[in-house]
């Protein structure tokens, strides 16, 4: 066993298709997430161009509805979620002193199902029309009676497959964080990013089954003729709203909590101070997650649930302001008395605080149901959630990417371009969305493809569109920065920011395949900082140097996802009338679905029948590789 060195080492494309290394999967998530983020961004720009002036006819009404639906769906599920997973994959095993995640195979499977779900959803553009019922897909508009293309089928099936990836990713991180922390790292010594990711994973575990059920019901209604949301047959459209938002509201906290974590890492590093009120931060995170499940009906104040429901959900929603406030002040007081450095990463983190507060206060305003009767479904709401998701989450992701880029790629992003990225993006952001608060209050409802002149909407919409293009310039600068940095040689220090506090900064950048030659011993919160302050150059190992057990690369996760993808397409077109009799035969007789499922379950069978014990890296090799890495 010890010298069973039969592992196949792949190179090039095969290496990426078969990898189970969390660091490589992180890069895959980043690439795929970045790509979909680009799609969503182009859709956003088209939306803003259409709204640049009244009665514009750049795109048709139908195309506009497809654009808004795909913009929302893509950004939430395929843009920011994967980038969050990229950071979680890249950082969490390193932060807790682990060699990989708990289930490397499942980790790869999560990525590939997400990617194929996302591809399926976006194929709708070239296969007969994108979904057009909004990212919320409210019934009856999203039923086959009113949305007659396959668009919404792409939405239900694509999201179902992508959501599967997210769910198994979440479970994997739960298991990883619970079982794989280095000796000495108690829960209350975990870095804040690991904490928030942990809570986010727990929320994924409880929230995603709701959307899974909802999507199954809607698919059944659309594809198999069921009646869950069909009033004339005893169904109820309001049921969809409940199911969607029982998932949908926790989802926004699933998104924002990791950003809170990033900010809680970046600000202490660049203020050279430990996080103020660490335990209250942990407590606030848990409280936000808990309350996040208790407030879904604030999206439905105008649905007509009655005063008792509205009153309870109003108050529950307002309460979220309290733990969020705790976090804001803790960040401010982390900087108080510190020595703040304005790196690009820190600019985004500092910019996050006031921007997110602005999104937060409008959230409390929306929580007041009678006021929400006016705000609801207007541009005020559009402004609010973009302040939270872009001004909060995306700022946080940019902070995290600039911060961990050297750890992921061994190169520091150019600081000058990084700062330009920030200023373009931040100014563009406020120009785009600040004015939208007023558009909403002046009577502009959301999701309209154009508007009449003489309503005082024209100037503010123009300003908003200009802002959107400034944001686009910021994103392009970031892309340019990535490419330019990639052309430079690797070779940054373990701790390029010099004030790294957590374990990932104790090992090379990028880390070797096995991360830690010896698992470190953790002596307190901010483990690496603690050692540095004690005058040590590196972590004290918790184990002797020995052979390291590694998981084998495998193509199975990729193949399984291809199978699900094929089955999904087969299901969607199962009752389609094709001109081609062969196509009709294989689709209408469920042959395509069966082929897809055989591929997936066959791969599972293979995986179960043939044990894979992985392979070992021996101590002698470690010495050499340690140098190369």
């Amino acid at each position, binding site marked *: 066993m010890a010298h069973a060195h039969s592992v196949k080492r792949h190179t090039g494309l095969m290496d990426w298709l078969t990898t189970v290394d969390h660091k490589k999967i992180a890069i895959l998530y980043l690439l795929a997430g970045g790509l979909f983020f680009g799609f969503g961004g182009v859709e956003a720009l088209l939306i803003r161009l259409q709204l640049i002036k009244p009665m514009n006819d750049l795109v048709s009404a139908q195309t506009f509805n497809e654009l808004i639906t795909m913009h929302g769906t893509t950004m939430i599920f395929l843009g920011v979620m994967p980038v969050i997973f990229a950071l979680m994959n890249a950082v969490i095993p390193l932060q807790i002193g682990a060699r990989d995640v708990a289930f490397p195979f499942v980790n790869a499977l999560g990525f590939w199902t997400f990617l194929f779900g996302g591809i399926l959803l976006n194929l709708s553009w070239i296969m007969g029309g994108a979904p057009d019922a909004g990212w919320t897909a409210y019934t009856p508009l999203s039923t086959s009676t009113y949305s007659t293309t396959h668009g919404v089928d792409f939405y239900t099936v694509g999201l179902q497959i992508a959501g599967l990836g997210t769910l198994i990713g979440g479970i994997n991180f739960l298991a990883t964080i619970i079982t794989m922390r280095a000796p000495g790292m108690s829960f209350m010594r975990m870095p804040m990013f690991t904490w928030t990711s942990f809570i986010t994973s727990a929320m994924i575990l409880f929230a995603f089954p709701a959307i899974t059920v909802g999507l199954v019901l809607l698919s059944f209604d659309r594809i198999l003729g069921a009646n869950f949301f069909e009033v004339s047959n005893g169904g109820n*459209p309001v049921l969809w709203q409940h199911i969607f938002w029982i998932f949908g509201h926790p989802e926004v906290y699933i998104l924002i909590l990791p950003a809170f974590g990033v900010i809680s890492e970046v600000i202490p590093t660049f203020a050279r101070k430990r996080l103020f009120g660490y335990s209250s931060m942990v407590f606030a995170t848990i409280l936000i997650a808990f309350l996040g499940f208790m407030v879904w009906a604030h999206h439905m104040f105008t649905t007509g649930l009655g*005063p008792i429901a509205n009153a309870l959900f109003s108050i529950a929603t*307002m309460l979220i*302001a309290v733990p969020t406030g705790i976090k804001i*002040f*803790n960040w401010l007081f982390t900087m108080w008395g510190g020595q*703040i450095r304005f790196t690009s990463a820190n600019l985004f983190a500092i910019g996050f605080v006031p921007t997110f507060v602005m999104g937060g206060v409008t959230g409390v305003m929306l929580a*007041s149901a009678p006021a929400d009767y*006016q705000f609801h479904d207007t541009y005020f709401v559009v402004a609010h959630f973009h302040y939270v998701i872009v001004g909060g989450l995306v700022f946080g992701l940019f902070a995290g990417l600039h911060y961990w880029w050297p750890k992921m790629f061994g190169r520091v992003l150019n600081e000058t371009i990084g700062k330009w990225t920030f200023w373009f993006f931040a100014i563009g952001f406020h120009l785009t969305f600040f004015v939208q608060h007023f558009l909403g209050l002046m*009577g502009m409802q959301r999701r309209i493809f154009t508007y009449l002149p003489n309503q005082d909407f024209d100037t503010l919409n123009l300003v908003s569109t200009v802002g959107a293009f400034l944001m686009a310039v910021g994103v392009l600068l970031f892309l340019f920065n990535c490419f330019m940095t990639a052309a430079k040689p690797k070779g940054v220090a373990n701790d390029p920011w010099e004030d790294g506090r957590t374990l990932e900064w104790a090992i090379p950048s990028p880390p070797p395949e096995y991360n830690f030659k010896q698992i470190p011993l953790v002596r307190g919160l901010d483990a690496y900082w603690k050692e540095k302050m004690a005058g040590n150059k590196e972590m004290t190992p918790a184990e002797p140097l020995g052979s390291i057990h590694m998981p084998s690369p495998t193509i199975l996760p990729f193949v399984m996802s291809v199978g699900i993808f094929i089955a999904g397409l087969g299901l969607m077109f199962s009752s389609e009338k094709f001109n081609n009799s062969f196509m009709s035969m294989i689709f209408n007789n469920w042959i395509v679905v069966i082929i897809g499922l055989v591929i997936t379950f066959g791969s599972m069978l293979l995986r179960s029948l043939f044990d894979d014990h992985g392979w070992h890296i021996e101590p002698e090799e470690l010495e050499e590789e340690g140098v190369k890495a």
Partner: protein
Amino acid sequence: MMKRWQAVKRLLPLLAVFSLLLAGCGREDLSVLRPQGPVAQEQLGLMKLAISIMIVVLVIVFAIAAYVLVKFRRRKGQNGVPEQVEGNFKLEIIWTVIPLVLVIILAVPTVQQIFAFGDDHYNDKDAVQVKVTSHQYWWEFEYPQYGVKTAQTLVIPTGKKIAFELKTADVLHSFWVPSLSGKMDTNPDGTINRFSFSADKEGVYRGKCAELCGPSHGFMEFKVKAVNGDSFNNWVTAMKAPAVLPEDPALAETFKKQCLSCHAVGDQGGPVGPNLTGIGSRESVAGILLNEGQDGGKPVKENLKEWLMDPQAVKPGNKMPNPKDLGLTDEQIDGIADYLANYKLNY
């Protein structure tokens, strides 16, 4: 209890300033910030309270942030490690309790208004009942007490409570007249909603659909016309008068055959499409083509012709068949447009 009211008092000057600032925003007949009835007025009041509290929060956070960012930048040659502060129990209690108090200040009037707004006035003696049915993409208004049905322009008497019962004939829509009240969704049978508002002053107010309902969601507008009680009664009488048909008998026959199969005028026609009684005196054609008298409006006949020549071009996805496909000639369309433009009600 005392403290809460003191806090509110401190917020009052802020409130006054914002009222002035916000009042400049938007059209009088459309903007949430320029309420024209008691319901919208109260809702704006709550918003102002919320905005004032939130501005206080923002000012505090921004001030601390600005101070910290200026005062605690890392200076050249600053190499000592700053003191690593774990936390501060007192401070943390303060910033937990103060937000909690602010939330309570906002929560109390919120709950009061939720219950006030939730009251069902549909069966009040002096309320005017209106059954609103939303369709892709037009609004039907039925007055069960008067036996009258109309579309696109909701005529109401000033000063009276208008009690609505809202439902949809197809997908979800949301009934919203920003200057008179917040919105309420129109759901299918089984989840029908009721709410009420009133208008103080005579005037025409703009209404919109606020729930995505298909391609022409943005064009699903309507008008609320508030008139005095006498005018309202005259309007009801005029609506109940027998139908006036085109004078030219051939045209009348075509109109009956092709249009009245779906639409109704007076006592004739069907209930599928919008009621056309007195369409010539409405503020818009199809809710979106504004007539003379409105900002940027055109003559009624021109709008009617634009609509009848190609309904899909005006409102993509609407359910009306193209009159040309029904075999109507340009002259017949012109004749019908002329007839409808002159079909006015006096009230």
